[in-house]
């Protein structure tokens, strides 16, 4: 199961890197959200899968799931959700002012302003 998830995470990271390196801003944003999905799954996998019982203190239960990675994932998901919303709004505003979402046309430095 760990191996399977590791492969899945690898595929997510590959796709994320491919998208982040593209020129279109929208694809870059999709890439960052794939990257954060991969990172979240990585937390879960790194915490160790398995554990047959829920992490509640009951007599006789020794093999229980680790609750901490789940708490971490929840926090990280909420944060990445909020940040993605912010980026999408900013990308839209940027698009409506600059009339382009091609990162190559968004270079510019002081001389070009």
């Amino acid at each position, binding site marked *: 199961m760990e191996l399977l998830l590791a492969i899945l995470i690898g595929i997510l990271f590959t796709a994320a890197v491919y998208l982040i390196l593209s020129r279109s801003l929208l694809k870059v944003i999709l890439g960052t959200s794939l*990257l954060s999905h991969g990172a979240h799954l990585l937390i879960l996998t790194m915490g160790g899968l398995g554990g047959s019982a829920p992490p509640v203190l009951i007599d006789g239960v020794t093999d229980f799931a680790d609750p901490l990675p789940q708490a971490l994932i929840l926090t990280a998901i909420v944060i990445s959700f909020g*940040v993605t919303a912010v980026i999408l709004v900013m990308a839209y505003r940027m698009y409506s002012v600059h009339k382009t979402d091609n990162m190559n046309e968004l270079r510019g430095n002081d001389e070009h302003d």
Partner: protein
Amino acid sequence: MNMINLLLFPIIIPFFFAMILLFFKEQVVIQRVLTVIGLTLSLVASIWLLVTVKAEGIQTVTLGSWPAPFGITMVSDMFSALLVTTTILITFFVVLYSFQSIGIERERFFYYPAILFMITGINGAFTTGDIFNMFVFFEVLLIASYLLIVLGGEKRQLRESIKYILVNVISSALFVIAVAYLYSIVGTLNMADISVKIAEINQPGIISVLAILFLIVFGIKGAIFPLYFWLPGSYAAPPIPVLTLFGALLTKVGVYAITRTYTLFFVHDIGFTHQFLLVLSLLTIVAGCIGALAYFDLKQIIIYNIVIAVGVILFGVAQMNTSGLEGAVYYLIHDMLIKAALFVLIGIIIYVTGTSNLREMGGLIKSHAALGWFYLIAAFGLAGIPPLSGFIGKLLIVKGGFEADNAFGSIVLLVSSLVVLLSVIRIFIYAFWGPQNPDYPLPVTSKRTYRQLMAPAVLLVLVTVAYGVGTEWLMPYISDASDVLRDPSIYINAVLKE
């Protein structure tokens, strides 16, 4: 009175006032008054904390009264207490400066709440003793900084802030990945406990990999070579008060995180990790020097000086001896203060000349003598001319470098001081000396606004002078801070033995 929650006040007071401010969107006067009150209260709390830490040692509180490695621990040692106090002090002056310079439109769109939320995140990141909690506080300060960098919605701001956000989102994802790997190895998130566990498992190679991964994560935020590429463009976009806060505070959070992890976690394979940090810090200095000399734009020159300072501080950290660490702590606080002073001063220069291009300036000393002389003091402080504060920090760092047999690096650092001096004196020569440039007459500006802008700038410069001249009295605090960095067991005992 039993005040175990004292160390939370500098985090919670700004947070509380930020929430209150959200209800007064249109009443700018109320917002200004409440912001000043909130920052004053936070400053009092942080100074109280500083005194308590000095008298009673490291303060810790584990939230929810869980025993130490299980709950989220907040730890205030001298290093973090000093940084928290400096952060609030600088924000206080920058807010005073904003009254006249940021403009009513930005004030009406959550400018002050964003600053206070950012301070919450910064102070939290300085204080937390839990590595995942540090990630959360990083996000708090980053989201507030996303608002501050784009606030105003100018064409250039929108273009640069989208890059700033993307770089930070990717670095945050890497932070989560690094924490996940660390958790799989040591099975804990409490920073003191991580330090103990890493010492127990005898330094397998994966710990060195993690050290580099954390260096990449914090290096993107703290702008070390070669990860500083995003900084000059993004920082030049927002208006001066925001640039001041970013330049003085945000990169320093990254530097703090590198210092903390490299003195608490990754201390068992110094030959590799700290050598790596040393080489990168020297390259950072060189890259910053090239940038600082290459531009004729006021903002860019000082922005590249941020990169140089990051290199200098990390060079001190990489020595891992008393002088080096004392120097790094001293120089970190010096640099926060002096960068705030310099950014505010060049903000005034830009206000009175109407441009940030050095070629279009000249002869300001005739019309604005006070500005010129205070700029010169700040510039000398940055370059490290005794008795100003830059000198003592660099002296200690260079001393640490020679003690650790890094003569070459120390000489690079000394030469870089000359480049820093040259880069800031170029501003003085172009802007203040010579005749007024006839092609670019000064725009009409109000004397009253100028005086109100000068007040916080003068106070900040005086604070930096006092920091340099008063080193004798401050040194016990600085050496308390560096003791904890040099000997992780002080930190571990304070957190776990309760």
